């Protein structure tokens, strides 16, 4: 039988930023509300609330997805990464974060969590993306402040840093 929940109550087990997580929630809960309001992970920003701007992007199995337009139940058994899970446990910034910081590839910062996750997903599959590829990916999300150019350059810098490996 295909009924998963009759009364709307539901348990969802998933991996959140590397940790096995189980939540008791309801079928109507969207992932961004679950993260922000129930788990206090406020780094996932919500703007348009309807899949367009990408400010709320999180990585689901490594691919960017709008958390505002994803039901919590959809991540059952899947791997979810939010901006809070991007830096190393010791607080070292990820190369993408470091590049965004160094390039000032943000202004108000409201798109930044989503842009960084988008860029991480891009670089995981394209270690040396050309400008056109970066632009195609970055075009998934809206940044109203920067004019995008510094974001594109930050992604290029991050790609270079990741290819060259950690400086020792």
């Amino acid at each position, binding site marked *: 039988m295909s009924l*998963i929940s009759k*009364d709307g109550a539901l348990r969802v087990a998933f991996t959140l930023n590397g940790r096995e997580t189980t939540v008791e929630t309801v079928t109507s809960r969207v992932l961004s509300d679950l993260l922000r309001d129930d788990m206090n992970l406020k780094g996932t920003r919500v703007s348009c609330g309807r*899949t367009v701007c990408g400010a709320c992007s999180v990585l689901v199995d490594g691919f960017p997805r709008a958390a505002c337009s*994803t039901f919590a139940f959809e991540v059952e058994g899947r791997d979810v990464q939010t901006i809070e899970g991007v830096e190393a446990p010791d607080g070292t910034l990820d190369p993408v974060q470091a590049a965004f910081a160094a390039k000032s590839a943000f202004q108000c910062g409201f798109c930044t969590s989503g842009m960084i996750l988008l860029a991480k997903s891009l670089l995981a599959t394209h270690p040396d993306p050309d400008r056109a590829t970066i632009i195609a990916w970055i075009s998934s999300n809206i940044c109203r402040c920067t004019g995008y150019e510094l974001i594109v350059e930050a992604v290029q810098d991050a790609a270079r840093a990741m290819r060259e490996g950690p400086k020792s």
Partner: protein
Amino acid sequence: MFHSPSARQVARTPADLAPMPLYRPETISEALAALHESGGTIYAGGTDFFAGVRQGLSPKALIWVAAIAEMKGCTIDSNGLHMGALNTHDESVAAPELDAVPGLAEAWSKIATVRIRHQATLGGNLMARRERYELSILLTALGATARMVGPELQVDMPVQDLWQADLEKTPLLASITIPLDNAPMLAYERSMRPTFTQALCRRGQALRCVMATEWLQPWFKDAPLDADAGQMMSGLPADFHDPAVSRAHLVRAGSVFLKRQIARLEDLA
């Protein structure tokens, strides 16, 4: 138009949804049973669903169709190219079967964004029934049919009829079929988006041209291969215009693009 007035009076968000029954069918018949039992709403990739919620959609139950294997994939048989309604845009574009219609994969690869293409489905694109979504335009040009299924009934209807279709008896779009007789090929012009787009299919000695704008349902015109582009475009109905574009411009620019697209298909053929 886009906003229903009632949705504008009160700004809704998904937080307005009440907890509701959730079904995760694995077959079409399970899905139909769930729909019948619950009176629920189909949920596929979710890239449009939440826009619907913001405009007032308030489902009684969710029928999450993502796990229905028989609604995925592409096949070719004597009836044509069949495409499952659950294919994402990425999956469709990557399917080798699409090569049976030269130009289709290329056109399809241009729509939406990297993030959306990974998640948005063919079925959702058509069943959202929004003027600005493009698969209706491409598939109308290709003379495709939609297989709509219900507990007691199954109908194959031309894609352009989906706009007005009564979903009461056949609520689920299972697949799309593009007939392959006479070697169809497609050209698609979307550089004028958001003002308008134009699809052109050549099938043997016949052409079908589709025009669409952000706000208007696609209009199509069949004509013989040697038809005059200007004449074809002058068939645009008198009321085919919207607040962002006049009919005169659609006819004028549409004719130019049509001429170019005819030439493009000539080269392809």
